[in-house]
């Protein structure tokens, strides 16, 4: 018995949820009823690793070895580290492509830090549910690029979780919010969290959640507000610049700023107060209006992406039926006021903005495990994808906000006589020049030499339901083909991740081979069961001799399953899949044909 869980891996806090047997999502709380786990990891001098509340408590005391907001560095290089970060942490400068926090003799990448948080969530979920947790849905900011998404998947893997799906945070919020909503509605989700801002526009209709557009800013959130307020109070405290610049003082000020900010969400005035290591007490009065003046430019920055998302969705602000607030920073009255002004209606916050994303992740976990057949999420690619063409131009093949899965084919030709190869440079982003976009992959395809303009190279972009991009290039005249699964790299290679996995204590303790064998057997049994059912249900689609061939492959797999070589079981499973592929395709074709013949689709939508 196992259960798929949904995880909100937040910048500030994380939590885990699941879909109950009654079809209702629930968050996992600890013994004292708290569900939020601060996304903080602290390394003590004694070699102990603290995660969550215990770690957070150490932040002002040991700022350099207490890693907060690791999510801000997921999949990013040292060029994304700012002055405030440098003041606080010690970074390993060895590899500029990956941010690594130096802690004593060791250096930790952001995925490794996040993995420690995920492990804690996994442990809590297992304790609460009393079953093994092996697979998860994890949420990411809608505006995360492919590298940041890959880094999140790697964090899951390092924590011993198979990441079935990454769901965009605002989409997850919509899943939780629209669970009981049965009327058609256009919904805007405004998600201002600790470190990121997202906005999504969705259409909800009878269990279908269609994402129309999404936009955001991956480096804008409540942390920036704390940062700004901390700088403001330190400026006015009359401290010597060396004291004000020290890591410890900065951390103390940030913590006091955060607390004051939270209080000002309900009070009109408060005090920012903290004690310096030398015993000096810093106290500063702060009016809500002062805070608002200070943070107005940050709040303003969220409105541009909102307008862009509306335009992309083809909707005016007054066509939005509901605006949902997500993320702790939406408790700030100024944020609510600006959102209200933009959409011309009172935003909704009836679900706890801290929990709504995790609850939605729990719902998607439920959909993927077959627990909610009535719900379906139609998600989009957040950023355009394309290839580099003549003159270093980004030519888009898939526009942002295209619903996935999707597939696009485009034919290109050569610019130079007798080229023997064509370079395919896969890009992501909205800018016109290739150099301004993110490079995802680069490969070369050999072609038959021909005069410029005569060669024909067909490029196919295919994105599956998980958002994984596969690019195939083919010389049309020779039919020579080359295909790559675009696995975004962000400085950490597969080998390095493998190495981390081997190194991690958890995995040294358990018998990896035994686990792999158990997984291979489970997979084989699943495929056997499914094939058996297909043979029974769609017997009329079998060609002569086909059932015998499929049954033979099933027999070999059944015999092989008792063996202890997991690789052999995998191969036999693949073999069965291969043999049954034409049959499966016929089933799909027949089903599509039936759908086409079904003339009154709109009147007779079946409500499963």
């Amino acid at each position, binding site marked *: 018995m196992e259960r798929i869980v949904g995880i909100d891996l937040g910048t500030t806090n994380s939590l885990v949820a699941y879909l109950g047997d009654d079809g209702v999502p629930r968050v996992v709380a600890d013994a004292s009823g708290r569900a939020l786990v601060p996304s903080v990891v602290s390394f003590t001098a004694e070699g102990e690793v603290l995660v969550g509340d215990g770690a957070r408590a150490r932040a002002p005391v040991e700022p350099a070895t207490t890693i907060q907001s690791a999510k801000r560095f997921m999949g990013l290089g040292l060029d994304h580290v700012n002055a405030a970060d440098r003041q606080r942490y010690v970074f390993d400068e060895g590899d500029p492509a990956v941010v690594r926090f130096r802690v004593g003799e060791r250096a930790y990448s952001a995925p490794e830090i996040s993995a420690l948080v995920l492990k804690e969530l996994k442990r809590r979920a297992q304790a609460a549910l009393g079953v093994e947790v092996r697979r998860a849905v994890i949420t990411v900011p809608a505006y995360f*690029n492919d590298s940041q998404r890959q880094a999140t998947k790697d964090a899951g893997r390092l924590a011993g979780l198979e990441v079935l799906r990454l769901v965009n945070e605002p989409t997850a919020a919509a899943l939780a919010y629209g669970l009981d909503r049965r009327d058609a509605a256009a919904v805007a989700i405004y998600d201002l969290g600790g470190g990121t801002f997202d906005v999504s526009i969705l259409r909800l*209709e*009878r269990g*279908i959640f*269609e994402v129309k557009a999404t936009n955001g800013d991956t480096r*804008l959130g409540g942390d920036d507000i704390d940062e700004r307020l901390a700088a403001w109070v330190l400026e006015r405290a009359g401290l010597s610049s060396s004291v004000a610049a020290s890591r410890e003082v900065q951390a103390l000020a940030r913590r006091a700023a955060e607390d004051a900010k939270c209080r000002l969400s309900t009070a009109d005035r408060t005090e920012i107060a903290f004690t310096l290591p030398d015993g000096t007490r810093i106290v500063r009065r702060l009016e809500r209006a002062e805070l608002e003046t200070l943070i107005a430019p940050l709040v303003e*920055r969220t409105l*541009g992406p909102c307008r862009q998302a509306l*335009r992309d969705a083809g909707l005016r602000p007054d066509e939005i039926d509901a605006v949902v607030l997500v993320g702790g920073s939406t408790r700030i009255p100024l944020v609510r006021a600006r959102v209200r002004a933009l959409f011309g209606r009172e935003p909704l916050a009836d679900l706890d903005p801290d929990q709504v994303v995790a609850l939605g992740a729990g719902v998607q976990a439920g*959909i*993927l495990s*077959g627990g909610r057949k009535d719900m*379906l*999420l*139609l998600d989009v690619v957040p*950023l355009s994808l394309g290839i580099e063409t003549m003159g270093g131009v980004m030519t888009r*093949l898939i526009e942002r906000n*295209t*619903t*996935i*899965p*999707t*597939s*696009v*084919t*485009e*034919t290109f030709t050569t610019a130079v006589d007798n080229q023997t190869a064509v370079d395919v440079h896969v890009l992501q982003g*909205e800018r016109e020049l290739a150099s301004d976009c*993110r490079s995802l992959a680069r490969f070369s395809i050999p072609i038959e030499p021909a005069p410029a303009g005569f060669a024909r190279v067909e490029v*196919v972009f*295919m994105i599956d*339901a998980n958002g994984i991009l596969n690019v195939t290039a083919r010389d049309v005249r020779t039919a020579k083909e080359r295909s790559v699964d675009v696995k975004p790299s962000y400085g950490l290679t597969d080998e390095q991740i493998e190495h981390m996995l081997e190194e991690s204590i958890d995995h040294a303790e358990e018998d990896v081979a035994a686990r792999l064998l158990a997984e291979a057997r489970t997979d084989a049994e699943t*495929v056997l069961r*499914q094939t058996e059912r*297909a043979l029974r249900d769609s017997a009329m689609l079998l060609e002569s001799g086909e059932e015998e061939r499929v049954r033979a492959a099933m027999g070999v797999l059944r015999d092989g399953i008792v063996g202890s070589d997991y690789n052999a079981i995998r191969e036999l499973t693949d073999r069965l*899949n291969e043999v*049954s*592929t*034409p*049959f*499966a*395709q*016929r*089933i*799909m*074709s*027949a*089903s*599509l*044909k039936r*759908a*086409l*013949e*079904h*003339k009154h*689709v*709109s009147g007779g*939508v*079946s409500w*499963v």
Partner: protein
Amino acid sequence: MTITTDTTLCLNCGKHTARQLACGGCGVVPSSPAREADYFSLFGLPRKLALDVDDLGARYYALSRRFHPDLLQDRPPAEREASVRATALVNNAYRTLKDPLRRGLYWLSLHGESLGRHNERVPPALAARVFEVQEKIEELRDVRKRGDAACVESEVHAIRDDLRGQMRDLGGRLVANFRRSDGADGDGAAAIGETKAVLSELHYVRTLLRDVEKELEPQWSV
């Protein structure tokens, strides 16, 4: 647009392939003749330009419920893979048909036509407009570098509102034209010509509007 007339859609794998009996992508012979396997017939709709977008949406949701891989997690892997391709095809078809401009271009491609062919001439009034707007955008960029851009900015805002109005008018003309095209039994060529003219203008105005909007609200870098 990536759809050209010398390719056809394979219903099995969702790829565009050269028109032939079997799909080059997956080798499967389509269950229905290639000519019928267009985006319209996929939704069980006649090949007509005027369509009810809400009805199209309902058909799209119904097909999604049937083929989306998320709802077929308990099926054999090969079938799930086929469902990914079927859903990709359904998604692309919906994206194309729900938008009047894309739908029009696709409809033209089904008739062996495209905007590029015999339509290089931009109407002079439109060309002048494009030129004028591009200049204004340049000017805005210039004054922004120097500081106070409020005056030019409000001019560009006015241009934007004007273009939006033009888009609405063109949209109305397009729909009216779609109805005429659909009704034209004998004189198909004239209908195609007219549709092309409106689509071409819409295409220019939309590109222009996007440029203006982009300039007024720059994207945050990722």
